[in-house]
């Protein structure tokens, strides 16, 4: 088990202790304050170089990571994969060797293959690797920012700061994750974060969109989605990943919407206090109705803005810390 990410890579949320996760959330809370200042910048990573390697397209994650690095005063090397030598067939190993030769302290990578971040960390052991999504495996900072957002909303309701509540607000919290679990790295990271902090997680999906094996997952599958909506404190709606061929796992998009979409009608079953989340980008009208996404209980924009402080915290702890301090 990893008790802190100080001086370490962040490849997955599996194996992080609750204390390690809380340390990131508490540090992010400090960066929320920095992000509210007129001058949204601190010199914590001044002179450090953070490379951002996105082998898959992304808007929010990439912008959010690069903004985070810049607000920490790091220099950002951003590799536009589409116009780089990767297109000429350069291997991951050679690409990272080239970037490493320029002198970097950390690399943020998104890749279409599960395990790519882990593989990369083996090539450059002296560089901190932050996984920004690898295939169907993990998207750790998304899991962290979702947990952070939930804690922030719940803490506000009791007029406390999130860091004062620790993991208290997660104890016994009912989290329902619905949609394309099979292809979702967000689901895997969310489940790891929520369950480590003490929440009870259930998942809802058509059989074809459940992973092949759920043996190691700390979740239960709900039989009746509508009933589960009444049970939930938090509903995490996942995106139907058409680019990963999800379309062929469901008879039709409209049938998916009919059975597992968070429609306006279905959302009426939710408790008034329930929090609605979506990692974006949304397919409005497919997994979530437009009207539902714009409800006050939907915190989708807040998830996006919390991305920056969470990624600042991750970079700060990972790059400036050293593992010996953590014992």
């Amino acid at each position, binding site marked *: 088990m990893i008790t802190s990410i100080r001086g370490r890579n962040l490849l997955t949320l599996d194996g992080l202790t*609750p204390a390690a996760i809380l340390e990131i959330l*508490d*540090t992010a809370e400090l960066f929320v304050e920095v992000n509210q200042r007129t001058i949204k910048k601190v010199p914590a990573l001044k002179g450090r170089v953070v490379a951002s390697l996105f082998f898959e397209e992304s808007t929010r994650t990439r912008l959010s990571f690069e903004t985070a690095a810049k607000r920490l005063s790091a220099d950002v090397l951003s590799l536009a994969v589409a116009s780089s030598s990767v297109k000429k067939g350069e291997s991951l190993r050679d690409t990272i060797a080239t970037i490493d030769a320029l002198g970097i302290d950390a690399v943020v990578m998104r890749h279409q293959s599960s395990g790519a971040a882990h593989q990369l960390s083996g090539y450059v052991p002296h560089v901190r690797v932050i996984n920004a999504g690898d295939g169907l495996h993990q998207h750790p900072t998304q899991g962290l920012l979702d947990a952070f957002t939930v804690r922030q909303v719940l803490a506000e309701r009791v007029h406390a700061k999130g860091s004062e509540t620790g993991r208290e607000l997660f104890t016994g919290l009912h989290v329902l994750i619905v949609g394309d679990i099979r292809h979702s790295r967000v689901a895997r990271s969310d489940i790891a974060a929520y369950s480590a902090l003490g929440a009870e997680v259930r998942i809802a999906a058509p059989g074809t969109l459940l992973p092949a094996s759920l043996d190691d997952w700390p979740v239960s599958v709900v039989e009746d989605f509508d009933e589960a909506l009444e049970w939930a404190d938090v509903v995490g709606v996942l995106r139907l990943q058409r680019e990963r061929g999800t379309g062929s796992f469901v008879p039709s998009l409209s049938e998916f919407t009919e059975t597992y979409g968070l429609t306006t009608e279905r959302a009426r079953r939710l408790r008034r206090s329930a929090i609605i989340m979506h990692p974006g980008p949304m397919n409005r009208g497919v997994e979530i109705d437009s009207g539902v996404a714009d409800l006050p209980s939907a915190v989708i924009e807040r998830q996006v803005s919390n991305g920056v402080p969470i990624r600042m915290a991750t970079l700060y702890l990972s790059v400036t810390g050293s593992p010996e301090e953590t014992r």
Partner: protein
Amino acid sequence: MDAHASSSRARDSFVPRTLLLSGEDVHRAVRRMAHEVVERVRDIDSLVVLGLQTGGVDFGESLADALAEITTSGVARGTLDVSFYRDDVAQRPFINSAASSVPVDLSDRLVLLVDDVLFTGRTIRSALNALGDFGRPRAVQLAVMVDRGHRELPIRPDYVGKNLPTSLSEEIVATVEGVWIGTRSDS
């Protein structure tokens, strides 16, 4: 709570040897510093008292309280966290930080930084850098409960609760409840 177990790590390894100032002594010293501030600062209305996270926060509060009592007016106060401005992050144990809370624009204000112990001066250097991100103060002054010497930078305090020449192997802990000298158990 597990997240906070580590925040007091620095203090946990402290083995106190002697109580140098009691809570009452500290209280008196704070009041005396408040009087000195009033004597030196003409336009007290422009004053903003900023306690440095985390050791200086309580002192900042009590100093601001004492000032409010003497001047019978409200004193603007806040806290400043300098962890992200340090130049010695790699050289020292990881510091748990707490958020800054600067209530007013600092432009043209007189900022009084307050800390518990003045040692190398690096915390104050970081604080001066941090202040720049909140505006351009007209002037900055420094009040510390204890000055223990061993400066590594050309920084001096304007108000001192107690001068305590120390050796480098010693450790000082200053709170509003008292000032202790001792050693670090893990060194």
